[in-house]
């Protein structure tokens, strides 16, 4: 466990020292404040669309941070050759993968906390009441989803050579799941033969990231989700993250390292 914590700490330090997350936070703050100062549709409740824009930006920024931070981890270690310094110490490859995962996931959580903190402050200052359970659920499930994404990208960095191709392919997959994931099952029912089998297999095999999207609940002031459903979706996310991590460890153990 010690090695996992040590590797985690260095990923966190990287997030703090690099400017990416700050830039994205500043962009989110500026765009949200700008959207709050203009009434686009004559809606008296500007707070609703401001919340919508802010949450959309939070989602985009969090996915960008998770994918870019994770995609460069192993590649940068290999490129700068620090991977060899690290693995020449009593650190196993599994510990390295788990350390990178926990570092990226916690770093994403810290960034997400800052984003949600800003969102809650903005929403409350615009007359929206304190809705702690809903905000907590939205944050928690969002963070669990980032865990799946981090594990998926980490796995991808052992398959794709360049971090840019890994990041691009993963972003396409993530956007695809978020936009089409919930409809794929229904679409499959209208298909026939092998196409239907493939569509159904994809529907059941892919991680349904859309389960973690509670934006509508916040925007439209809906009541919180039942906690047992939150618990189930958390376990579902952990299972997928675990599966991707297991695959990443397996691939990394088999990968030859040439110092």
């Amino acid at each position: 466990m010690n090695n996992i914590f040590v590797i985690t700490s260095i990923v966190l330090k990287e997030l703090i020292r690099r400017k990416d997350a700050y830039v994205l936070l500043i962009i989110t703050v500026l765009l949200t404040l700008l959207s709050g100062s203009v009434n686009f549709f004559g809606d008296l409740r500007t707070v609703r669309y401001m919340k919508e824009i802010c949450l959309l930006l939070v989602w985009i920024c969090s996915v960008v941070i998770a994918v870019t931070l994770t995609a460069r981890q192993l590649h940068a270690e290999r490129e700068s050759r620090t991977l060899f310094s690290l693995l020449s110490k009593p650190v196993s490859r599994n510990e390295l993968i788990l350390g990178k995962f926990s570092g990226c996931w916690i770093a994403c959580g810290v960034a997400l906390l800052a984003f949600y903190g800003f969102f809650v402050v903005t929403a409350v200052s615009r007359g929206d009441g304190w809705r702690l359970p809903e905000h907590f659920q939205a944050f928690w499930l969002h963070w669990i989803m980032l865990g799946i994404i981090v594990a998926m990208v980490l796995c991808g960095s052992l398959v794709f050579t360049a971090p840019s191709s890994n990041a691009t392919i993963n972003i396409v997959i993530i956007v695809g799941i978020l936009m089409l994931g919930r409809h794929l099952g229904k679409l499959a029912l209208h298909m026939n033969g092998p196409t239907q089998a493939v569509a159904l297999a994809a529907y059941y095999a892919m991680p349904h990231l859309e389960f973690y999207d509670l934006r509508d609940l916040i925007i439209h002031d809906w009541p919180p989700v039942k906690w047992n459903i939150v618990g189930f979706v958390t376990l579902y996310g952990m299972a997928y993250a675990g599966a991707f991590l297991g695959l990443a460890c397996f691939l990394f153990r088999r990968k030859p390292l040439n110092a």
Partner: protein
Amino acid sequence: MNNHPIEIKNLRVEYPSTGRGVPAKTAVADLNLEICSGEIFGLLGPNGAGKTTTMNVLLGFTNATAGDASIFGRSARDPQARQNLGYLPELTYYYKFLTAEELLRYYARIFKIPKAQRDQRVDAVLKLVDLDHARKRLIKTYSKGMQQRIGLAQALINDPGLLILDEPTSGLDPVGRMQVREIITRLKDEGKTVLFSSHELGEVETVCDRVAILHEGRLRVIGAVDALVKEHDCGLEQLFLRVIGYQPKLKTA
């Protein structure tokens, strides 16, 4: 119980074919090697001779196809075998967002060195590699020579009994080379065992107690530098060229 810092028995490493018509490559063939405690051992050979592959097996980066490699009697595959080992890879660029002090603390924590000792150890290695003055500077501001010295510092952070240095003076100017050489000599005086590969034969002759010359994955020559020079009645460079079968091209009129 084996106490040799390094023991290699019948080591064979084969890289599988990468495609149709490309044969499998034997990087190391039936290598037997023992390195004794406190000696500085030079691993020589032209590019592709198997030096780096041998080091990779010792460091657990590559699995042997056959044979065995152990560090202080422990299989090189076991990560714990590296508890008493320091490694300097060739031309490494350490984390740009860290200072030298932070980098060394990071590696020290991996070795589970207690906090009080960790600070002492960081101070000691920074002094040894003459980077005490730059300890709070980000590594990205370091020159190549300083980068190499911080590399040596990280290899020494756990006060290892065995050091593996892969071309430690590669890419350094004469002053940088001299500084690294002085550090290696100082380590020898402290009783450390050092295995290092280098293409600088003059340097190897100056620093090493024993050398081995590998060619096409096979061990061709092994022995004490002085004895080899005397036995073959030539300098190390000439011996090296002779062993690898290099024929100088004669000028034609």
